[in-house]
């Protein structure tokens, strides 16, 4: 709408600015806290302007032993663990659901709809509900304290399967018929036609699933006992509890700051495709 209403402009800007401030303030505080020395962080009032210890904290956090007194892995290790887990979950989920959606949409086999509904029903069973049996299975398979154990139990996705099913249903049948006449076998069609046509949806889903994987807390907490396998999200919480002394806010906040970077990076890198994937209807 192109209208010249200065008061309305002012009000909308004001609302937006207040909104940004509310969202940004905690992040700012995190950043500020990560730039001070531990002593300053214990004094009230908490600082609102950055200090001069950013690099020092950065190096200590990333490569040091973490908190003094607690035996945690260096944060780069946690970042690596989290990244591996999130990537395995996101890529695994996308690969599996693409294939299952392909099967459900393009192949006729007995109980096809039955399988579809079975997959769909698992939406009602998130990790938290099935956590005991899943733990049992993972433990028996010897996957505790491993990347497989972190990712495999979370890798099936009804949501993604359902979404890809919907995407495939919008692709006209002529596309399949035309490729059949061109001589493409099913997997060729899948690879040459379906995947490129779902590219934006895959990107959108990747963003969502990566963040889902990155933010996993309960499951990694259960199955990782070895400090080399801890993920960054769970260790932030551990850092708060572990030390018997004062929490070292500068280190904790630096860790939190580092934990935020990969998801932000993924969102920014994929933003264009992400928006296209959620809004595009033209096939």
């Amino acid at each position, binding site marked *: 709408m192109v209208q010249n209403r200065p008061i309305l402009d002012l009000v909308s800007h004001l609302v937006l600015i207040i909104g940004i401030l509310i969202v940004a303030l905690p992040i700012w505080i995190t950043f500020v806290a990560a730039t001070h020395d531990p002593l300053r962080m214990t004094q009230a009032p908490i600082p609102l302007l950055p200090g001069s210890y950013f690099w020092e904290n950065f190096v200590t956090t990333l490569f040091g032993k973490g908190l003094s007194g607690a035996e945690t892995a260096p944060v780069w290790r946690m970042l690596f663990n989290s990244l591996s887990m999130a990537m395995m979950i996101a890529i695994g989920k996308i690969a599996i659901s693409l294939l299952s959606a392909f099967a459900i949409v393009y192949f006729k086999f007995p109980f096809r709809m039955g399988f579809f509904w079975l997959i769909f029903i698992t939406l009602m069973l998130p990790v938290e509900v099935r956590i005991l049996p899943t733990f049992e299975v993972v433990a028996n398979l010897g996957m505790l304290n491993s990347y497989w154990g972190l990712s495999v139990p979370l890798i099936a996705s009804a949501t993604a399967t359902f979404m890809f099913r919907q995407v495939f249903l919008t692709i*006209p049948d*002529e*596309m399949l*018929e*035309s*490729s*059949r*006449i*061109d*001589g*493409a076998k099913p997997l*060729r069609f899948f690879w*040459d*036609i379906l995947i*490129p*046509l779902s*590219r934006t949806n895959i990107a959108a889903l990747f963003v969502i699933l990566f963040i889902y994987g990155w933010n996993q807390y309960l499951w990694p907490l259960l199955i990782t006992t070895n400090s080399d396998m801890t993920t960054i999200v769970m260790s932030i919480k551990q850092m708060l509890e572990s030390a018997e002394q004062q929490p070292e806010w500068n280190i904790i906040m630096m860790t939190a700051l580092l934990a935020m970077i990969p998801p932000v990076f993924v969102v920014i890198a994929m933003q264009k495709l992400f928006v296209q994937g959620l809004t595009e209807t*033209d*096939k």
Partner: protein
Amino acid sequence: MATIKLENLIKTYGDVEVLHNLNGNIEDGEIVVVVGPSGCGKSTLLRMIAGLEKITSGEISIGAKIVNDLEPADRDIAMVFQNYALYPHMSVRQNMGYGLKIRKIRKQEIERRVQEAAEILGISEYLDRKPRQLSGGQRQRVAMGRAIVRDPQVFLFDEPLSNLDAKLRVQMRLEIRKLQKRLNVTSIYVTHDQVEAMTLGDRLMVLNDGVVEQFGTPIELYDNPETIFVAGFIGSPSMNFIPAEYTTKGISLCNGKKLKKNLKYKGKISIGIRPEHLEEDKKGNINIVTQMVEQLGSNSLLHGTLQDTDIEIVASMPGHITAEAGSMVSFSAKETNIHVFNPKTGKRLG
């Protein structure tokens, strides 16, 4: 190059039979247009020939080979779809070359054939564009290019022009005809548009409710329609039908007027006269009460009802005419232009 043979083709969906015992031979290099109203089974027939639909019973052969159980890719056919079915993520070049690439043909050969086809169709300059950057007519050409590069034995067209605007349709119709003659590839073309069918086909197969009503050249169909359905379907505006009776004295129309024609039949008949075969004749026996006149420029269409009845009649008259609503105009028709049908079976009597 190949002939196509359809023998006793039957197609059922569940309990519903949509094609009933269909037969026909398509000669080498011929273009046959399958025409009929929507739901008559014409697209189903084409898709059965393409291998996209299973054949319930009967046989289809292309060349000397029975293709019933062959995959579409192994039938040596190419198909042009109504909505073009171009791959949106591939450039025109890739779209045209995709079938060849799958067949593992060498890159240079693919490139050569794509260039050649693009030149024939006049789309050389669009080769690197994506389908969405092209207009409807250009996409249509690409879809045809994709068929040409494969150099198949048979082209199948499934209403390829129905997404184009009227003017472009006329132009593309001519181009398809020229192209088909130039490449001399046996072709089957499905459409519901009878004008398209008449102009494009060497022969027409008129399909109605899964049955072949008539299979012949456009002129045969126009001059000697075998059934009421064909008579009404071919020609625009469509034929006028008047219930009548045949006695030894000739045809007696339902309003009592007489027409001359020799027939070996007695009893109730239905006569058909094309609008363009009604000639204004003061002494004529076909009297029409005018309702309105449509001016088309080169000719005029007079809409009215047969005197003393409410049977609607259209007469096409040359030039510009004026006729008041309610006034009566008399027409006659040559004996050869009066078609007689059995109203019960719909078959031609003479």
